């Protein structure tokens, strides 16, 4: 069942077309990657999903119901972080959560708030003013605020922006816990493509305000051309062998003795076997079929 359906979404700011035609759907239980280069229209689309921005055209449905006509009902079941979570700095973490809990559409007790503070690891700091919090702590408080009313759908727009590596790992693990333990549906917009590759099962890539591709992450990656990075001890023999016997391949020198190879068909096994036979001195073979390559290929078109 699709929990989020976006059909032909468009948004103009005056004469500027920020989003031209974006469509995708997020199924129940998905961790859905929402990708696109800067200026592709990701943030505008997410803001439309959360009714911060009124779309010029198109339709957004949550749980099979129009967002436009069921805004309050929908938002009761949605939690979100848009870019960086901002709080009332002059209030404590607990008081901030109480404020958002009061207007979450659900009855949330002080005990539940405390449990959420414990869940994100802010116990002991709940009485401190948010003005003294680091970016990572604010992000954790933002996640607490997102989960406070036990939403069915969680929308995270660049949740790891500005976080240190430790913080990024913490957020990633938290999303995995939400997926595995709580079976939440997550829409995740991120520039961390490796993160999406690890976490997401489905994704959409948008560029210049339009949907480029949507589907299962692993199926999409399977379809793309197979790339390898090969390090050899004898580059001259390697280049001769490729030119003579594998002329259909594209081999590009990355740095001394290391080549990036693109192949349309999967001929890895005969290629490596031949390179070994000809005495290239194969030192390393690294598969390079990554989301990063796929993303660049899709957005360069």
């Amino acid at each position, binding site marked *: 069942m699709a929990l989020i359906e976006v059909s032909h979404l468009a948004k103009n*700011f005056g004469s500027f077309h920020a989003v031209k035609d974006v469509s995708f759907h997020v199924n129940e239980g998905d961790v859905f990657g929402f990708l696109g280069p800067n200026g592709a229209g990701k943030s505008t689309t997410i*803001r439309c999903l*959360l*009714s*911060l*921005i*009124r779309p010029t055209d198109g339709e957004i449905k949550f749980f099979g119901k129009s967002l436009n006509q069921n*805004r*309050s*009902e929908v*938002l*009761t079941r*949605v939690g*979100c972080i*848009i870019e*960086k*979570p*901002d*709080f*009332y*700095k*002059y*209030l404590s973490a607990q*008081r901030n959560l109480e*404020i*958002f809990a*009061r*207007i*979450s*559409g659900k009855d949330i007790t002080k005990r539940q708030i405390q449990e959420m503070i414990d869940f994100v690891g802010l116990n002991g700091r709940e009485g401190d003013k948010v003005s003294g919090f680091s970016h990572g702590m604010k992000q954790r408080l933002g996640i607490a*605020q997102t989960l406070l009313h036990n939403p069915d759908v969680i929308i995270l727009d660049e949740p790891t922006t500005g976080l240190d590596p430790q913080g990024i790992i913490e957020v990633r693990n938290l999303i995995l816990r939400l997926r595995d333990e709580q079976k939440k549906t997550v829409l995740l917009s991120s520039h961390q493509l490796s993160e999406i590759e690890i976490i997401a099962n489905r994704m959409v890539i948008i560029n210049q305000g339009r949907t480029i591709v949507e589907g299962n992450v692993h199926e999409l990656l399977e379809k793309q051309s197979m790339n390898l990075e090969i390090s050899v001890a004898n580059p001259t023999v390697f280049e001769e062998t490729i030119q003579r016997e594998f002329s259909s391949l594209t081999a590009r020198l990355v740095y001394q003795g290391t080549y990036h190879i693109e192949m349309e068909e999967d001929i890895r096994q005969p290629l490596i076997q031949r390179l070994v036979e000809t005495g290239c001195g194969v030192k390393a073979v690294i598969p390079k079929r990554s989301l990063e390559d796929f993303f660049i290929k899709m957005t360069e078109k």
Partner: protein
Amino acid sequence: MLWKNTINELLKIATKIRSYIGIGALTLLIIIVLFAMIADGKSYIGFVTASFEQTLSFNGKILNGNLIAFIIMQMLIVHVPLLISLVTGDLLSGEEAAGTIRMLATKPISRTGIVLSKWIAATIYTLIMTVWLGFLSLFVAKWMFGTGDLIVLNSNGLLIIPEADLAWRFGLALLIAFLALWTVATLSLAFSAFAKNSVGPIVSTMSVIILFTIIGTLDVSVFDSIKPYMFTTHMAAWRSVFEDPYPTSAIWESVLILVAHIAVLLGITLFRFNKKDITS
């Protein structure tokens, strides 16, 4: 949801330092006036009554709490709007500047609910400021200077209002003053819906008050047709309560014009905020 968010808004106002700047400044100003009157009140009153002393004989305590309250209200009613707009001009724009508007607008409360809860909170804050103004100017002044009849100098001459006839007049005057301040609070909230920080709404509100007040005092016939409809014309309507006979229809007219301003300004705020794309 509206009332729950109103509680949130009151909580935010109560925990912000800027909310106490107005109350603090008002308290300080009144204390200064009270001490000035203790120190030099008699010569101040003498200056006013000097021209009448050849024809009239003044008996009893002229410099009393009622007169001090009347003087304080006259002095401060022009300045209190600035103190009010310090808080109310920040209500929407402050959320925009802090980025919390995103958090607020993605909750199940409607945009109309957000504006109305802020407006109700602004109303309560304005009411508190008016009550505080009344308390300090009336009760503290009476406690310090005692009571007595009120001498009012207006365009018709000198009017002496008996002490027994003053309680309801002060009550009604404060009610009308509240209405005027409520209009200012709603005006700054309306500006706040258009701005991304609180400086703009506060400066804009004061600019409008100053501009309208200047237009109101200019004796130029071209402005005569708009003067009766400017809210600043009616901000001093509370003074009419201390006239004899009491001008009922003029006061009602002022009340209606102030209420109409509040309704229109609130309507503009609701329209603007409901149409607004939150991109911050």
